[in-house]
């Protein structure tokens, strides 16, 4: 089997338009949660908070590429360009058809879907729908726009498993390169904010509703006073490469992926299940040929929902006891859904390379159901080299990945 390394990373997040801007914000313990007038204007919506990313410099993407991109694909393209530049990616250095594209999002563009039906329903006139709106409202819109933008001709896949979409993309890319079918793959996830996205979580009693007047303290994973998640947006894209190929072209290696697993819990359509999560983490450890003691940090999925955080904490306790530092970056970033896995994986990797573990923001009093694991509530210094990233999704979907810094 081949070894798979990370040679490029890019991100557009609620905290900044690049990896370095995001890391700087984490270093300064800043957060991105804002009160959102668009949400306040919706009847029946109780959660008025969001973690928006800034759309800027989009015209640097040629119109021929950009015309089929909604906000989420633009974020993904910008993140991919950053990853490409960091990797020193040049197509001629790779075999034809051996650079792939795997990316996903929870849904196609909710903004474009809204616009289409806002036009169509009152008129019933298809003559008013633009061709480009169609390409923005396809399930694989992020991945196909990315592949077009970068001119990629290798393996293509769109992973659409809600909040696990991005980590599934990275894991699948890892497995394909490991098996020798691709030399490199751009992979990750993207998401765009819209009132219907927050509306879904509010309807399912999973969105924060008590902190509308106090955004600073709204997103508080694992905390006793948490009351739900805050939706964010952005993109995280990694350039994964077969290790020997990277070494041969003199690329800088930032980390190596050691193992991945994803599974369906099969127990409940929306509720997390501690046994299923623990099973996923055990399987990824086995795939990575690691023991729990090899893991120096866990970047939790923990979104600040009442049910999910407790189940993840219990699962981590079952596998790792209270020995491994754990934090969730959603206190800073909000929940960027399909982008959260890649964004938080990049932040964790860059943090460990700087000997830092970024904490769970707003974790002031650990909830009883979230105890039994070693929480990180302030920035910690570490010598850890190996970490686990978790992502979970509605439908009982679990995904975990083990990565080692280089």
């Amino acid at each position: 089997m081949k070894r798979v390394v990370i040679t490029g990373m890019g991100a557009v997040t609620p905290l900044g338009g690049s990896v370095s801007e995001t890391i700087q914000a984490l270093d300064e313990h800043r957060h991105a949660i804002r009160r959102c007038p668009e949400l306040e204007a919706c009847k029946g919506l109780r959660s008025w908070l969001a973690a928006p990313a800034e759309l800027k410099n989009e015209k640097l993407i040629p119109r021929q590429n950009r015309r089929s991109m909604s906000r989420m694909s633009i974020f993904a393209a910008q993140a991919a360009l950053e990853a490409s530049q960091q990797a020193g990616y040049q197509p001629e250095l790779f075999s034809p058809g051996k650079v792939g594209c795997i990316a996903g999002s929870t849904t196609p563009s909710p903004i474009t879907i809204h616009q289409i039906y806002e036009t169509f329903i009152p008129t019933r006139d298809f003559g008013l729908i633009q061709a480009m709106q169609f390409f923005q409202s396809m399930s694989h819109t992020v991945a196909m726009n990315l592949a077009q933008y970068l001119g990629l001709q290798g393996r293509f896949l769109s992973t659409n498993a809600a909040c696990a979409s991005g980590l599934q993309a990275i894991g699948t890319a890892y497995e394909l390169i490991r098996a020798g079918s691709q030399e490199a793959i751009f992979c990750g996830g993207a998401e765009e904010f819209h009132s219907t996205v927050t509306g879904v979580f509010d309807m399912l009693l999973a969105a924060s509703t008590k902190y509308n007047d106090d955004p600073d303290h709204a997103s508080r994973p694992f905390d006793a006073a948490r009351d739900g998640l805050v939706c964010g947006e952005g993109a995280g894209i990694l350039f994964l490469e077969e290790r020997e190929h990277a070494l041969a072209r003199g690329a800088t290696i930032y980390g190596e992926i050691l193992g991945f697993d994803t599974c369906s819990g099969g127990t409940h359509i929306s509720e997390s299940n501690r046994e299923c999560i623990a099973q996923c983490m055990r399987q990824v450890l086995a795939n990575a040929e690691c023991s729990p003691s090899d893991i120096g940090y866990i970047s939790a999925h923990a979104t600040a929902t009442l049910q999910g955080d407790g189940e993840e904490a219990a699962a981590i306790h079952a596998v790792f006891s209270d020995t491994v530092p754990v934090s969730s970056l959603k206190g800073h970033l909000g929940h960027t859904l399909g982008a959260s896995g890649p964004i938080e994986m990049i932040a964790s990797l860059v943090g460990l390379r700087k000997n830092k573990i970024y904490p769970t923001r707003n974790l002031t009093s650990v909830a009883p159901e979230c105890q039994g694991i070693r929480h990180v509530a302030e920035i910690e210094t570490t010598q850890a080299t190996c970490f686990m990233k978790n992502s979970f999704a509605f439908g009982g979907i679990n995904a975990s990945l083990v990565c080692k810094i280089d």
Partner: protein
Amino acid sequence: MTREEIVITINTVFEESFEIEPERLVPDANIFLDLGLDSLDTVDLVVAIQKKFGVQIRDDERVRSIRTLGDVYQFIEVIYNEKKA
């Protein structure tokens, strides 16, 4: 609608939808070779024109013979006058 108003409205569509600089919007400009539109853009050009002028042109065979911006002005003027009549 006067010819001048049609020209201004069409040029606005090209500026807004296809990001063409105003100075390139001359009647002799070939919308494919000079302005860079492709077949997908023409789909959205038709949609934009239908919205702006309240006309139905998607099935009009004359659309296929449009090459220059001047052809667009002329076509819309004819269509608009037909509608008025």
